[in-house]
């Protein structure tokens, strides 16, 4: 690809030092968000060194600054940004007309995340143009490895927000569906926020072992009933807080027949999402509990048991992560040695090996949980 250039006064260009492949890149890779074009660049977990700064961004950035790029692009000035709702910034989605039609009202621009969120080129590249760079960056100090800092861009604040918006209280049982990178961060966040019992649900032994490393009780849904185990662990009452770190691509298998129907409908464009996890969470959650959703959904999801949710008085919290709302606090916790997000990296490769790494990550081959790429 050609290198990006400064296009607006608030832009900056960074030389990417590290980037990563995210689970939601796979949703795009699988064309579940059909708003990508040939030549679009994926990647929304990126950090690097500032090499060029637009005039209006010079007050907050200079050449040589080491920065992590939040996956959400925020103006910092609109009504939503002022409220801390950065992922629904009103100004940064440059495909607003399209997004208004799809979502009712446009959400923020995101890096490498389809034209519904602005069509901005992503950071799986040597260089990245950062629009609204004066407010879309996290300055990080020298002396800490990229491995520990890179995930401030997305999965660490996403896991943190999953736990925070669940309003975890000491003594709570928190059930987390999905032990991918976001689920792993949510597990650590729930522990730091004082959950008494964290239960992690997945089917892949390597992911369950990583969850258990942080003290989670694990449930292998391929071999045991999630509902029965959760009820057993909570005296029959169900978990207080349920976190969805899966989203649109629930695993399809015969043990979960609804996923087969969802997959068939998804192929025929009759349904966008496979919301098995959402159905299960609503069913098993303790009445008056909280459902926290950070797994990405893309559109229409069928057969959501709203009757159960309404009658049980559940509270739903969901959003793309308002990244900068949490990054200052989380950077301090990394510096303070409270959390080391590098634990999640299982594969490191050169950027040129990206296609192969996408395949490895997609196929969950070689016990892959998180891929970090270096240009």
């Amino acid at each position, binding site marked *: 690809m050609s290198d990006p250039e400064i296009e607006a006064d608030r832009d900056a260009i960074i030389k990417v030092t590290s980037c990563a492949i995210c689970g939601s890149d796979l949703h795009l890779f699988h064309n579940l968000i059909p708003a990508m074009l040939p030549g679009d660049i994926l990647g929304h977990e990126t950090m690097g060194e500032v090499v060029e700064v637009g005039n209006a961004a010079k007050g907050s950035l200079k050449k040589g600054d080491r920065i992590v790029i939040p996956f959400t692009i925020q103006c910092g000035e609109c009504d939503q940004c002022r409220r801390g709702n950065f992922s629904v910034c009103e100004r940064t989605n440059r495909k607003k007309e399209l997004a208004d039609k799809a979502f009712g009202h446009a959400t923020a621009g995101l890096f490498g995340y389809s034209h519904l969120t602005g*069509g901005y080129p992503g950071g799986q590249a040597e260089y990245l143009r950062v629009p609204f760079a004066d407010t879309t960056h996290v300055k990080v100090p020298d002396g800490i490895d990229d491995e520990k800092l890179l995930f401030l861009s997305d999965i660490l604040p996403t896991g943190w927000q999953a736990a925070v918006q669940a309003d975890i209280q000491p003594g709570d049982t928190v059930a987390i569906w999905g032990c991918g990178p976001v689920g792993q961060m949510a597990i650590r966040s729930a522990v730091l926020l004082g959950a008494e019992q964290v239960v992690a649900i997945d089917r892949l032994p390597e992911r369950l072992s990583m969850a258990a490393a942080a003290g989670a009780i694990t449930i292998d849904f391929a071999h045991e009933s999630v509902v029965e185990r959760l009820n057993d662990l909570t005296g029959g009452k169900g978990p207080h807080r349920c976190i969805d770190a899966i989203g649109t691509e629930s695993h399809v298998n015969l043990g979960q027949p609804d996923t087969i129907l969802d997959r068939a409908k998804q192929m025929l464009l009759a349904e966008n999402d496979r919301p098995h996890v959402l159905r299960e969470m609503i069913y098993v959650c303790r009445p008056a509990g909280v459902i926290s959703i950070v797994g990405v959904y893309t559109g229409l999801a069928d057969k959501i048991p709203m009757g159960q949710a309404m009658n049980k008085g559940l509270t739903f919290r969901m959003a793309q992560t308002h990244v900068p709302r949490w990054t200052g606090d989380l950077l301090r916790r990394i510096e303070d040695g409270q959390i080391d997000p590098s634990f999640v990296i299982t594969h490191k490769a050169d950027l040129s090996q990206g296609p192969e790494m996408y*395949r490895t990550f997609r196929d969950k081959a070689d016990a892959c949980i998180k891929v970090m790429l270096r240009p």
Partner: protein
Amino acid sequence: MSLTNLTHITRSEGDPRVERKGQSSMIGADRLARALGWFSVGLGVAELVAPGRIARTLGLDDKQGLIRAYGAREVASAVPTLSIDKPIGLASRIAGDALDLGTLATGLQRDNPQRRNAAIATALVAGITLLDLTAFFGVKAAHKREPTSGRDYSDRSGLPRGLKASRGMARQDFETPADYRTDGTVANAVPALAG
């Protein structure tokens, strides 16, 4: 025409341009499967639209309804073959090939004046079956999750101070923002009763 064409999405002028293409994440078997998927679409549509012509060409005039049903089957198996779940689509194509061969076999009898056409069609379907089998086993092998991949990461806590010290550590200096609190909702509406 893709959905992106229908929605008139375009890349922005200043975005980086493709200068040369690198390697693809798709391997040969993926490409073969994709080609077979589109072949399914083409054949399926032909069988749905012109079953009579196909039946007459093969000397199977009494099987027009069956050929139309096969057309629907072809289109149905094309959907997963063109998706990321290629093995499902290819398996259904292989099963369909067996049905096709069985039906064509009835056209190979001596009393069929179109026996030569039926024989050619049988050979073509046999060839396609081989391609389907090649694609099926190729895709399965390429995207296999090795049985040895149950690696153990139980030494990766990510909590440098240990689990016990970490539990609730953030409570010392973190307060849930007001807009994320659920007290005041039904969750803890009357805490006084707890005492």
